[in-house]
């Protein structure tokens, strides 16, 4: 059985390091499920098992490579230059890199080939050019009381204290213009933990660690634990990057080890200046405990999160179309909103679960009409971006449950039993337990459309029912052509941020968040500086309506 590598080490390190003598472990998956290596469609990965001594040797080798890694803007320029041909290779169906990803990722992860292919062709959807600006931000304590403009970046930024005080002492003592962050302290060793629910989390963490050089110092040694559930994508991209510019990733390693191996965990975390973990809450607790015991490094934890969509009544007005193309705006909104839920089949924390639709009354499409059109879009997307190899029985169970609730007169199911998705309009009164149950229902392409009288109901009646720490993104469809961020919208965003939302972006961008903004309440500056306890919320746009149309055109162009 041919094994592919579920780990990555720089070529030089690999040659110095006695990996081949150490021995490997293997794991096979087919259709997203563990299997035997000989099973039909099985993809087998391998990774080296390192003992404590070998880990130390590895860290020494990576540290000695640090000086090779370019620094600051030079790093960034070379990184972007290298990423372009890499992205082009992944987008080229004839390229061996693209073929390798397509031949292994769908079978191993269970995601459909088309989903993987679309993602491979969309690596440039992440706007990397914004990153230097993100490191030059200097948010002040005023951000704890009002939205702040972000210099050289669209959108706004707001900070929420973990324990908000009824009195703004900072304002009282006229400290509002004081910086929110302490002076920078660049990490020398970053230890990351990548989740496997969506491809490439380990890569994202490695990139974030490398970007800290934009603050001016050398790039850190970066060691990321790859997920056994998706160990393929990150090594492929790093290999491709290395082939273009090996210095960029000379101090980076991606390996697999056990969380339960307390010796290795303590060895790594004891030396880490920063740990970044995208993982389940239990794993995060485990890492946090080791970190508290073994080291003094900062910890960026990205645990269980959920995301939603908010559709303003103004974009549902009858007769609205995109001027030149004549496409009804309802189609634009529902397609983009559908994509936010379809990408990664709602296994990602960024995937929207419940779509809140504001009532506009006469002259506007109702929540039911929105849901009907959403169901049509999902049906079309099922052909373009088929659902992964996940059990259909979960969809069936939810379909049955919600159709049985139709007799209440407050629930309508818009999808069919044989559809690869479920769309429900649910207008029942919900308490916290039932709302959480509804949120939990929305996995694997299950969307609940929830009518609201006004957008403010979203934070005031619904988000307040969820733990602050579990909220993540809100995708919005709102505004008018050329309209900026209105006071009404900023008030709404403020209320959502106060309930725990950490990122607000326009519909259709859910699967492609911009890394220069807040990820679970942390912004890039958090990688290099300490600050008061709390979380950020960011708005990723200045003109929501125009941004939405731009995303639509981009998607249509991609699909074509």
């Amino acid at each position, binding site marked *: 059985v041919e094994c592919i590598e579920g780990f990555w080490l720089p070529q030089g390190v690999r040659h110095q390091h006695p990996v081949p003598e150490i021995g490997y472990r293997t794991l096979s998956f087919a259709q997203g499920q563990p299997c035997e290596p000989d099973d039909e469609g099985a993809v087998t990965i391998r990774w080296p098992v390192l003992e404590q001594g070998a880990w130390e040797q590895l860290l020494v080798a990576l540290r000695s490579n640090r000086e090779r890694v370019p620094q600051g803007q030079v790093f960034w320029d070379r990184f972007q230059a290298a990423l372009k041909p890499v992205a082009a290779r992944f987008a080229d169906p004839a390229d061996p890199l693209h073929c390798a990803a397509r031949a292994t990722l769908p079978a191993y992860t269970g995601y459909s080939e088309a989903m993987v292919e679309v993602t491979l062709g969309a690596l440039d959807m992440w706007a990397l050019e914004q990153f230097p600006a993100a490191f030059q931000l200097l948010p002040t304590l005023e951000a704890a009381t009002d939205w702040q403009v972000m210099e050289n970046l669209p959108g706004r930024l707001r900070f929420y204290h973990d324990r908000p005080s009824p009195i703004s002492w900072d304002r009282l003592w006229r400290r509002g213009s004081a910086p929110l962050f302490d002076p920078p302290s660049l990490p020398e060793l970053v230890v990351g933990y990548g989740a496997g629910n969506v491809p490439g989390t380990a890569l994202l963490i490695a990139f974030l660690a490398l970007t800290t050089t934009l603050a001016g110092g050398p790039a850190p040694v970066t060691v990321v634990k790859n997920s056994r559930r998706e160990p393929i994508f990150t090594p492929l991209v790093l290999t491709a990057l290395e082939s273009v510019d090996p210095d960029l990733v000379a101090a980076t390693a991606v390996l697999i080890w056990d969380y339960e191996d307390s010796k290795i965990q303590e060895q790594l975390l004891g030396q880490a200046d920063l740990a970044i973990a995208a993982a*389940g809450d239990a794993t995060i607790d485990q890492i946090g405990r080791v970190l508290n015991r073994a080291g003094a490094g900062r910890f960026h934890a990205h645990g269980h999160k959920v995301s939603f969509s908010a559709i303003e009544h103004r974009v549902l007005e009858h007769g609205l179309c995109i001027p030149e193309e004549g496409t009804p705006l309802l189609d634009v909104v529902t397609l983009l909103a559908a994509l936010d839920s379809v990408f990664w089949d709602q296994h990602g924390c960024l995937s929207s679960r419940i779509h809140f639709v504001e009532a506009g009354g006469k002259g506007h499409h109702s929540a039911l009409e929105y849901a009907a059109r959403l169901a049509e879009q999902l049906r079309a997307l099922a052909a373009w971006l088929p659902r992964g190899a996940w059990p259909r029985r979960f969809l069936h169970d939810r379909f049955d449950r919600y159709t049985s609730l139709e007799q209440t007169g407050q629930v309508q199911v818009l999808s069919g039993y044989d559809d690869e998705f479920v769309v429900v309009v649910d207008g029942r009164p919900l308490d916290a337990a039932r709302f959480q149950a509804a949120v939990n229902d929305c996995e694997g392409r299950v969307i609940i459309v929830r009518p609201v009288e006004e957008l403010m109901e979203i934070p005031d009646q619904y988000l307040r029912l969820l733990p602050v720490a579990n909220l993540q993104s809100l995708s919005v469809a709102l505004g008018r052509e050329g309209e900026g961020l209105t006071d009404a919208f900023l008030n709404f965003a403020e209320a959502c941020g106060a309930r725990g939302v950490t990122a607000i972006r326009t519909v259709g961008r859910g699967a492609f968040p911009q890394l220069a903004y807040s990820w679970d309440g942390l912004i890039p500056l958090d990688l290099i500086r300490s600050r008061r306890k709390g979380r950020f919320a960011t708005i990723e746009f200045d003109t929501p309506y125009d941004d939405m149309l731009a995303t639509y055109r981009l998607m249509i162009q991609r699909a074509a």
Partner: protein
Amino acid sequence: MSLARRTATLLEAIAATHAWHYERNRAYRQTVAARGVDATIDLVDASTGRLTGGLAQILPRLLRTTAQTFKSYIELLGTPFPHDRPLAFMAWLSDQISIDLPEDRLALFRARYRSLEALLQDVEQVYAEYGFEILTSSGTSGRSTIMVRDQASTDSTIESFYQAFDRYLGMQQVQRAIFVMPRQSRIAMARMASFSVKRLGLDDDRIHFAIPFPADPDRVRIRSGRTFRPGWAGIVERRFWYPAINWMQESYVTPRAVRTTIDLLEQAETAGEKVLLFGGWVQLHAIAQKLQQAGRILHLAPGSLLGSGGGLKELYPFTPAQICQDLAGVIKLASGVGLDGTDGPVPIRDFYGMAEGNWAAMQCQHGNYHVPPWIYAWTLDDHDHLQEAPDAVGLLAFFDPYGGGALFPAFFKTTDQVRLIRGDEVGNRRLACPCGEKGAYIAQDSIQRVDLLDEAGCAAQL
């Protein structure tokens, strides 16, 4: 009857049962109609007697999920406490059964009841002529399945259980039956098992229930510690009744049940009576441990049996195999019966069933669970397709065309993953159970409760 004939008969019965309930049972009709199933289905070609090609398409669509069907009142009423909304509960119940309940009697119900038990007693009383038996699941989540049987379906269930017990446990010989469970309980398996013993004709003084307190659904709920009433009542339940009931259970009820059971077993030992001891694994283990502590080994008359049912619902540090081993060490048959000529352990048989099923799959001496011949059993794959392979692991689905009687079609998809072997049905003798019993069986140690709520990655459940 040949297997082919049996299959054809069952399929005809399934189609007829479906048609009958489709017309009368609103909840069933709503579920299957939403899946695109009409009132009339053709599973067997009338002219040839062969299965139609639509079988694989249609049959899975008739299955309702056990975990949802008779628990749906919780979502529809918006509360797990039906006694707060008796009329809404009756409306739900009417939808679940295929007979029309006289609406004028709804006026006889109170606006609220102090307990679920009080409401269920009233339902049975108000509609006394139907002979309703309202049963519940064991309620480990604190949210019970509530299902109703009428006199006819209760009789058929008792007969089903009796046949199974008799065939596998040889109950005709039993002279004394000891149930390590309360006499008064709505828990379906306990109630049906005890009813089926009555069917033997044993006098009441020969049927013993070792747990001295009734297990009404309200107490079972509180004891589970997972669902409490809202408001002050809930605070009292959580802070006072929950610890009090569990303390009582541990310090008084269980020790007394164990003592009573051992006393009764000792009486049977002395009298040389063939005894059936029946209880959950945890209770049986408590008895074994008590006997171990006392250094006592019981020698029961040949023909005596231990029976267990209901699986291990709670977290318990011992497996059924370990429990069997402990029991075998302390409860033996009288001398000379063991294979090696010494004392042999009392045979232990488990049975598998559920509140929604009107049948029990009994464990044979080879450890496999045999599905009664009037049940059409399959496993489903992850996509709810019937698995054609004669030896397949998947969610157990069953069609019991006769068991639901006039009340509901007993076509259910369970939440139990099993290895179901249907070697006989495809003429594969190598897959037959060594005990010689024909028909489908569930392989030993293959039953696993599957949580249908999947969890995946960082976007998992709140």
